[in-house]
């Protein structure tokens, strides 16, 4: 047993558990100050195992620091702070409490040095995030959270079996780079990928996240998928299959977001798209690619939260409107929300001078360095596609397009402050990437700003923008959704269970009818022989009886006489 540090994630979890019992002032203080304290304590964690606890015959490395752990824990803590600020006045205190537990357990995963600790925090995360969705307190959010929980419990079980099998194989619980070459490691990989939103279980994300409250979805966007990116970065760097899974996710996100009408579902599909870039980078596996994946996770958390804060503000101020068909023209009355939303949109599209530019470029650069022509071409097309599906589509349909006649004001000061804070970070990291590059897992001298790179990126993006306005008639929003993998468990599964149980019901009815018929026949047979008029129940005269007995005796006498 070794205690050199208290786990920073657990501080946040405990803070979350205290929240519901605190008075308003103390609650505000906890929400605003605790994440900053956690951020500070993240940077007190040195390299190597800092907290080891005995568990059964194993020694758990509950806190183990290195650069990769710290960069993820840092952005999780920053996210908890800004999300808390945004949700400060949220009436559902349970949501904030759950969000802090959720964020704290994500930090717990980032510092976990062994697979058992990873699993424990992994499961707390699943519960915390489900509670965040539930806190929206709508019938839709209740059902969506149940579906979400089912998928994540399934993922958790797969991960647990994988961990057990892996530990049985290797005898070590240490969480380090693995190769998927045994049942255990394959299942661990599958468990991680489920949380990343990888196919075939992609649909849990756009199904559940948009059902959170105006502030809940901001928290949801940050932790689950990015924790999955973290564990893949540490556990499976350079595994080739991840390149193809990542490329699939990139295009899946774009295509579905293009078809979507609900602004928060657009942004949810775009999370899968962005995580796809990171997973592709992890699959490429060079130092440049892994740095790119880590940097992109960092910047993505910030600009995606910013986009969802902007969408959440619109929802909050319009009484829950989420559909592009209901929105439009809001730039006139919500300038702060609109400008912050556009900054987030530019950052996700990797415009020069925004944070997305300095992070995503590293992944494309790595694909070029490794001569992966096909992957590089896909990444370039997808970069253009990001601008198309999120960068223009979200601001255009929410803040511009037609005038919906809605004139909501900008949201309360705390929500504006959270948006402005993240907008500044998006621009700041884009203008001065040095501090982010300094905390990456590998040292880098990558230079994002060269004249050709900037010009080429602008060409790619602005021509993508041209295609959006040329194809605007095709982009017209309709009151529709697109079938996704969740159809299999929301419709087909229900139908299948209905079909099979209907078969069982019919079979049971037939068997019972058959048995009843048999019993009826036995009863009627018994009735005919033993009933009031039955053969064996009839009465007969004494004389006749005596005559029968005499005849029988005579037959016996004759029979025995001859035999003797």
């Amino acid at each position, binding site marked *: 047993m070794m205690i050199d540090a208290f786990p920073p994630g657990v501080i946040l979890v405990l803070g979350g558990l205290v929240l519901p019992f605190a008075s308003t002032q103390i609650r505000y203080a906890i929400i605003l100050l605790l994440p900053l304290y956690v951020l500070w304590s993240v940077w007190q964690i040195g390299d190597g195992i800092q907290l080891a606890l005995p568990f059964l015959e194993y020694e758990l490395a509950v806190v183990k620091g290195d650069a990769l752990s710290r960069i993820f824990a840092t952005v999780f803590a920053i996210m908890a702070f800004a999300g808390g600020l945004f949700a400060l006045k949220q009436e559902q205190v349970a949501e904030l409490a759950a969000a802090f537990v959720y964020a704290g357990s994500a930090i717990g995963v980032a510092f976990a040095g062994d697979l058992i600790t990873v699993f424990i925090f992994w499961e707390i995360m699943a519960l915390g995030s489900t509670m965040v969705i539930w806190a929206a307190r709508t019938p839709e959010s209740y059902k969506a959270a149940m579906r979400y929980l089912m998928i994540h419990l399934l993922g958790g079980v797969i991960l647990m079996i994988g961990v057990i099998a892996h530990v049985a194989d290797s005898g070590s619980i240490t969480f380090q780079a693995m190769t998927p070459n045994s049942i255990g490691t394959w299942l661990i990989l599958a468990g991680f990928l489920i949380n990343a939103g990888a196919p075939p279980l992609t649909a849990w994300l756009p199904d559940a996240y948009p059902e959170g409250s105006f502030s809940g979805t901001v928290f949801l966007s940050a932790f689950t998928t990015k924790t999955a990116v973290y564990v893949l970065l540490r556990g499976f760097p350079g595994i080739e299959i991840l390149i193809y899974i990542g490329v699939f996710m990139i*295009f899946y996100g*774009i*295509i*579905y977001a*293009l*078809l979507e*009408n*609900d602004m928060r579902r657009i942004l949810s599909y775009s999370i899968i798209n962005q995580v796809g870039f990171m997973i592709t980078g992890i699959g490429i596996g060079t130092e440049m690619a892994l740095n790119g994946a880590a940097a992109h996770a960092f910047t993505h958390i910030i600009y995606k939260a910013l986009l969802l804060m902007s969408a959440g503000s619109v929802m909050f101020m319009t009484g829950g409107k989420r*559909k592009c068909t209901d929105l439009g*023209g809001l*730039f*006139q009355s919500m300038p702060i929300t609109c400008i912050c939303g556009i900054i987030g949109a530019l950052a996700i599209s990797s415009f020069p001078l925004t944070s997305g530019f300095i992070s995503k470029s590293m992944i494309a650069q790595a694909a*070029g*360095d490794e*001569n992966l*022509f096909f992957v*590089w071409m896909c990444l*370039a*097309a997808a970069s*253009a*596609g990001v601008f*198309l599906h999120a960068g223009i589509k979200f601001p255009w349909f929410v803040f*511009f397009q037609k*005038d919906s*006649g809605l*004139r909501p004001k900008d949201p309360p000061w705390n929500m504006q402050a959270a948006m402005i804070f993240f907008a500044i970070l998006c621009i700041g990291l884009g203008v001065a990437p040095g501090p982010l590059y300094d905390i990456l897992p590998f040292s880098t001298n990558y230079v994002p700003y*060269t*004249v*050709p790179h900037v*010009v*080429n*990126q*602008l*060409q*790619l*993006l*602005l*021509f*993508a*923008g*041209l*295609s*959006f306005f*040329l*194809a605007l008639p*095709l*982009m017209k929003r*309709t*009151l*529709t*959704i*697109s*079938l*996704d993998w969740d159809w299999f468990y*929301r*419709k087909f599964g229900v139908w299948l269970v209905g079909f099979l149980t209907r078969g069982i019901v019919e079979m049971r009815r037939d068997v019972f009818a058959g048995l009843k018929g048999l019993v009826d026949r036995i009863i009627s047979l018994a009735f005919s022989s033993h009933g009031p008029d039955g053969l064996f129940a009839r009465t007969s005269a004494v004389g006749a009886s005596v005559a029968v007995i005499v005849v029988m005796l005579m037959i016996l006498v004759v029979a025995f006489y001859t035999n003797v």
Partner: protein
Amino acid sequence: MNDETELPKDLHWLVRPSTIKLLWRGGFVLLAILVLADFAIHPHAAFGIDGSFGFYSWYGLLTCLAMIVFSKFLAIFLKRKDTYYDD
């Protein structure tokens, strides 16, 4: 509340037809300048095609149009009313 009287009769300057026409023209000038900028820069192409003239311009335009058309094609099979899952 009567929205009709509260809405300003004159359009916001950003959405007036004259402004929109100006934005389109400015946009095309910007795109033309960007394409022509390829003469001036010396890219460090990783593969060859990415260093050819106007590559990023046509590639961005065509792949995006392709993605839009492909999504519309998929929509034929996948689109449902947004009340599809409601009980």
